[in-house]
């Protein structure tokens, strides 16, 4: 690898050993502090698995039931631990099965190192058995990738992979290793990568831009903060809180920013975006200064860009210069790590309060409560609602559980109604919207934080996209709580069909199997709830269980999630019904 000349390294083990490439893979992982990895074996990665067998007291391999599950489990692990998640697969179909998880990690900035086996180097390009150009396939969805064809290249490639995955704006990387490289020998010495010439992970924060931002905020009449996952990735929760409290600025969050500030905080005014809260969406188009922190103005957040916050001066804090002016033109860009830039901002902000402006949020919340929330969490109609399930979970968990949600109506309900009192509590597929994410991600999350309650909220559709991971749960005894909100529909798509396609429910109705029997078949405790009077008790029982637990709640078939900003509409045209 020519790159070695341009990379900076730091020696961690200076004694050189003569070992095989596959042993070098394991020793590199151990040197990077990896204690668990998720994967699935096959011909082209067998030498590495053989080594894993020898090192099983030092590094725990979790056999998922599908490589997509391995990638999502590694994501769940990474999202809750803040460490790099590791997934491994064989060549060809094993490698391609990782791709959805890698793409998901890329758009949600999740640090992953994926290791794939590859056919022997003399077979490359010959359409050999289980050969795919995984480096080519994964290029657009990785932060970096490379192919290793010599044993001697393995330590440097993995060192670089871990460095790139975790530094700056994190992301997934893929290292593809040919079988001959795994088998042949090298003089192994592990040196951590501490820099790559062409890569500057964290841009320097310019104090002048911070001052300019502070001046705008200090003089604003109706300032408004929207924060995203950049706060959590930068571990800047405390700094965010200080900024908000000192300036008295109402603050809202994007889906991936959820939980950085407790739900109960008086200046936390809710979620923005398509199914976000009424007030923050409406008032985006009324604020005079919009302060975006570690968020990327996704179209699910902004709606129509031509009408998004046009009246406001925009300040954008981000670690990634490519995000500045990508979607929304900013007046002041503050580059850098949120932990540092927010700390600098807090220094120069005036103590302030914005009571009458904050009152506007409260007034709109009241409207949303009356028109939407009340019926969601305290329904009077007969059918169970998704919202009341979340409310019960909040009660039992005291808002401390990590909520891992899949994709669909239940996801939006989970994000809207779950209490998030601890950071890193909302693990969901934001940017890619990957159905099938939650079940395997919950496994990884639970393994990274065994002391926390991990509750997966999944729809009947998404559950069946990776239902095989029940096997992984059973085998590893990961004590995840699985809640399937069964509406016998691909609910979110059905909602769109109802609202925008004249109720033509094309291929969205689902005839489901007996989920309880399936869970029991995997030796997982299971219960189904059909009536309101049984809900509280069932949730209590689930949360009290020390083991994994499956709870199916049969909810109203045709409930909708509101508020809603219809696709392409302005955020202030948010609908309450």
């Amino acid at each position, binding site marked *: 690898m020519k790159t070695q000349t*341009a990379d*900076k390294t730091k020696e961690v083990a200076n004694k050189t050993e003569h070992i095989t490439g596959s042993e070098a893979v394991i020793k590199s992982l151990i040197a990077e502090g990896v204690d668990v990895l998720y994967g699935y074996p096959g011909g082209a990665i067998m030498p590495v698995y053989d080594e894993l067998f020898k090192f099983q007291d030092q590094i725990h391999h979790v056999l998922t039931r599908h490589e997509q599950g391995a990638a999502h489990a590694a994501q769940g692990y990474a999202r809750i631990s803040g460490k790099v998640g590791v997934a491994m697969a064989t060549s060809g179909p094993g490698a391609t099965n990782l791709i959805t998880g890698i793409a998901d990690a890329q758009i949600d900035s999740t640090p992953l190192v994926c290791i794939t086996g590859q056919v022997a180097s003399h077979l490359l390009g010959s359409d050999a058995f289980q050969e795919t150009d995984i*480096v080519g396939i994964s290029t657009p969805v990785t*932060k970096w990738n490379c192919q290793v064809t010599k044993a001697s290249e393995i330590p440097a490639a993995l060192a670089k992979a871990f460095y790139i995955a975790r530094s700056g704006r994190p992301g997934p990387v893929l290292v593809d290793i040919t079988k001959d490289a795994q088998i042949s020998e090298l003089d192994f010495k592990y040196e951590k990568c501490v*820099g790559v010439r*062409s890569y500057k992970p964290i841009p320097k924060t310019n104090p002048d831009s911070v001052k300019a931002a502070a001046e705008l905020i200090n003089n604003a009449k109706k300032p408004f903060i929207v924060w995203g996952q950049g706060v959590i990735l930068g571990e800047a929760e405390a700094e965010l809180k200080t900024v908000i409290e000192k300036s008295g600025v109402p603050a809202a969050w994007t889906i991936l920013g959820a939980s950085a500030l407790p739900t109960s905080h008086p200046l936390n005014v809710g979620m923005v975006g398509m199914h976000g809260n009424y007030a923050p969406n409406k008032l985006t188009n009324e604020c005079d200064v919009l302060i975006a922190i570690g968020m990327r103005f996704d179209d699910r957040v902004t709606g129509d860009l031509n009408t998004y916050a046009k009246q406001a001066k925009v300040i954008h804090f981000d670690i990634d210069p*490519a995000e*500045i*002016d990508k979607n929304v033109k900013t007046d002041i860009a503050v580059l850098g790590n949120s932990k540092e830039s927010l700390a600098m901002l807090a220094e120069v902000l005036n103590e302030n309060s914005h009571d009458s402006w904050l009152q506007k949020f409260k007034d709109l919340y009241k409207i949303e409560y009356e028109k939407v929330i009340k019926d969601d969490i305290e329904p009077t109609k007969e059918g169970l609602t998704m919202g009341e399930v979340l409310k019960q979970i909040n009660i039992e968990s005291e808002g401390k559980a990590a909520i891992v949600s899949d994709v669909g109506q239940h996801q939006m309900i989970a994000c809207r109604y779950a209490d998030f009192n601890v950071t890193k509590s909302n693990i969901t597929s934001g940017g890619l919207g990957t159905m099938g994410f939650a079940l395997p991600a919950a496994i990884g999350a639970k393994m990274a934080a065994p002391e926390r309650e991990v509750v997966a909220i999944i729809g009947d559709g998404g559950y069946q996209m990776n239902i095989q991971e029940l096997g992984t749960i059973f085998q590893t005894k990961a004590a995840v709580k699985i809640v399937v909100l069964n509406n016998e529909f691909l609910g979110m798509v059905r909602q769109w069909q109802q609202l925008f396609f004249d109720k033509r429910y094309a291929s969205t109705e689902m005839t489901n199997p007996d989920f309880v029997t399936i869970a029991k078949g995997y030796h997982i405790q299971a219960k189904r709830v059909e009536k309101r009077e049984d809900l509280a008790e069932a949730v209590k029982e689930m949360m009290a269980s020390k083991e994994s637990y499956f709870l199916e709640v049969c909810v109203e078939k045709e409930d909708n999630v509101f508020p809603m900003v219809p696709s392409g509409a302005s955020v202030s045209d948010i609908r309450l019904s």
Partner: protein
Amino acid sequence: MNEDIKTFTISVYTENNIGLLNRISAIFQRRHINIESLTTSRSEIDGVNRFVIVVNITETNAKKIVKQIEKQVEAIRAYYHTDDETIFTESCMFKIKSSLLFDEPQIQNIIKESDTRIVTVNREFFVLEKSGRRHEIEALRRDLNVFGIMQFVRSGRIAVTKDEMKVTEVLTAFNNQ
């Protein structure tokens, strides 16, 4: 916002690694931008490659593209320039039947007037080479076409900027860190 579409030359300094061409071209592909020409070669700095990419886009898009390119781990720096800010040229070759050189005196005039170089002559064919702006090359091709061209090939644009590109400083700064 109706911004003008202009010709931009995008210069990218990169590490000399396999796969970068893919990464960089994918950025254009994702945004549905057609690449007019692409040249890659080593640069003035040892171990550093340079891409010269010509595209017709708006300046706003050029800015965004450059940022996305720089975001790639192994891209060192990317710049965009208008035609006015660069000195640029393309190069081309024509393979023509040797008999024409003697039978068609007009060809000799064309060669002289167009500042074209004869690379080789043998019994069967001779080869002409010319560097210049696209329209000069096109004019030459039109002139020669009447007599018959056995093969024609044109390179992508190569360009240097009138102003300094501070990529060396970037590298020095890193190496001293």
